[in-house]
């Protein structure tokens, strides 16, 4: 099942996200990840959406999205011509004797410890999907208590 990353410029108005996500679900696509916020123009928001489907060609979804009056522009981003990042927060069990290892791991990944508690550490990592998955794998033997991850953010590379 192919994954597609769509960058969708929409009106920054109530209900617009419902229109976009509702349409995608209705037309047979799954939403794997989603992130939304204002753009450089506060009247517009950028929706970055990772989606998969078996039967419906992505062209069809793009055309249907274009029909939404609040959708201004849709760009499909491929790994070659775009940069992307995700953010993850891992709360990990951290007994005193495990802390040095965990902190080492954090440094290797250029991650940061953003909270230290009696028996846990919270580690923040921004990176691409694979890097985050890697760190997750390495952290899991220590006992991951909770994870929060953002959807993918992406922009096309280079000039405008």
């Amino acid at each position, binding site marked *: 099942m192919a994954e597609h990353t769509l960058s969708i410029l929409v009106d920054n108005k*109530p*209900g617009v996200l*419902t229109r976009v996500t509702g349409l995608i679900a209705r037309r047979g696509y799954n939403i794997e990840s989603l992130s939304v916020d204002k753009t450089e123009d506060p009247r517009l928001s950028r929706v970055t959406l990772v989606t998969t489907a078996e039967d419906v060609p992505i062209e*069809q979804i793009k*055309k249907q999205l274009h*029909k939404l*009056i*609040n*959708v*201004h522009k849709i760009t499909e981003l491929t790994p070659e011509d775009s940069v992307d990042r995700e953010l993850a927060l891992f709360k990990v069990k951290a007994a005193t004797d495990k802390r040095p290892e965990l902190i080492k791991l954090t440094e290797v990944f250029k991650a940061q410890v953003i909270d230290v508690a009696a028996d846990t550490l919270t580690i923040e990592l921004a990176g691409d999907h694979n890097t985050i998955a890697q760190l997750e794998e390495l952290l899991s033997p220590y006992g991951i208590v909770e994870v929060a991850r953002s959807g993918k953010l992406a922009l096309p590379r280079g000039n405008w």
Partner: protein
Amino acid sequence: MQINGATALIRALEDLGVKRIFGIPGVQNIEIYDALLASHIEHVLVRHEQAAVHMADGYARATGGVGVVFATSGPGATNTVTGIATAYMDSVPVIVITGQVHTTSIGTDAFQEADITTITLPITKHSYLLKDVDALVPAVFEAFYLATSGRPGPVLIDIPGNVAAAETSYHKPSAAPTLPSYKPTIKGNARQVKAAAELIAAAKWPVLLAGGGVVSSNASKEVLALAEQAQIPVVTTLMAKGVLAAAHPLLLGQPGVYGTPQANAALHEADLIIAVGTRFSERATADADHYAPRAKIVHIDIDPAEIGKNIRVDVPIVGDAATVLGALSERLEKTRRPVLQEGESLAATSLPSSSSSPEAPPGVSAEVPVEAPAKAPAEAPAEAPAKAPANNGLYLNTTHRVFSVFNELLKACEDVIITTDVGQHQLWASHLLDASKPRKFLTSGGLGTMGFGMPAAIGAQLAFPESLVVCISGDGSFQMNVQEMATAVDLKLPIKVAIINNHSLGLVRQWQELFLEHRFSHTLLANTPDYVKLAEAYQWQGRRIDTKGEANNLKDNLRWLLKSEGPALLEIVVPTPDLVEPMIKPGGTLTELV
């Protein structure tokens, strides 16, 4: 000058040329109804909001204009849903203006609160929840622009009661709204038009497939011109019935699961299909994977999302049907065409005449009932059976006879508009009744909504008081909006309803008979009301005939229906087992009959 939102709304509707609104008041649109009192806009008080939308829809389909509906919040709004979905599926411009609970109560499960903009998201072209009274007038103008431009469709405007009551000022927008994110393409790409013209010039068996978009675009003239210019036979979908006059020699009738054999055979054997304003619904293509296996396909549509959605396309052309067809005709003038012999036409050669013909492309099945493309099946009743496969006697079955006789009488009347409900009677009507022009056969094609017929007839009759408006209904469907008989009386509308009473939900029953080994699960309607008494109760005229006993009275009674004064109803009792034939097997290609 400060006025309230409701008054501003009515002013906007007046400035937009609205003459008539269909609806029912409630607490949350009470201000709007109050403002309406001062307006010259006529209001049609209906008995159910679903019917209000069907009336507005019928009005829009018949006129090419916009239908407008008022409903209150909560149940009033949710009652409109089936009507909106019906209009959406058939791309009809309808504006539904609902009341909503006060902005301060939204989200609290207040009395009669329903989130109608969210409920209708998948069935509207766009919608507005207006929380700011100053946004009201621009939104109304924008809504009309959206509903009527590009691919038309319903738009909903939800107005909280306190917004309608709030003060604002009225400024008529000086220009049409511009929306940076919405710019329908009208003119087709010239290179694509040229490519299409070249395909037409080279084609041996071209077929022009016209859909509802031809009607929306008022492009019948252009279809006719292109068909005659290049001698291309024409197939019209259910939504395009009437685009070519029934008697036109190039017309092959309707494609699809319930299509005419000649239309289906033509599409199946075609080497080129020029599809205009049609979405290749699965009812029209049957097995989409084996649709028109030899054909190149030119697809003209104003909605780019329809192109390539269901059927592969060789030459996509996004644009308005009339504009693109005009350009195509012009281009074709300049394109080299095959030299025709005296008296020969592409249409005549466009259909393989038999499987043994050397002209026939490989794979033509001997079972395919192919006829000369000279006439639509409905053209002459006596000829209809000759075109159907299982022909025993003059007519395929009793109900066919009813429709054929009816058609004869209707053809003698001037200015007829037919509406239908949904079921066997709808398909019999589409097969056996003629439409001489577009916008004269109004039916719920996409959603297939039982209960559409009579309200649509009311809408059409209001638009055309002089026309003879006839609703063909079924014993099942008629009861889904029967209450509107009262509305017709209120308005003194002389609509005629023929109820084809087969004592069943016939079309579903037909599927059970053919595909579920006669297991008739809940499709028999033994207890129908006494329609004659019902007519009387509503102050209509009513009669009943039973085709079993009084065969000879058929014509007289049909004539009575058409000539009667005021609203009239004729119940025609027909045999339950009569089938809609021919029909394509579920999952079959266009030539695989049941």
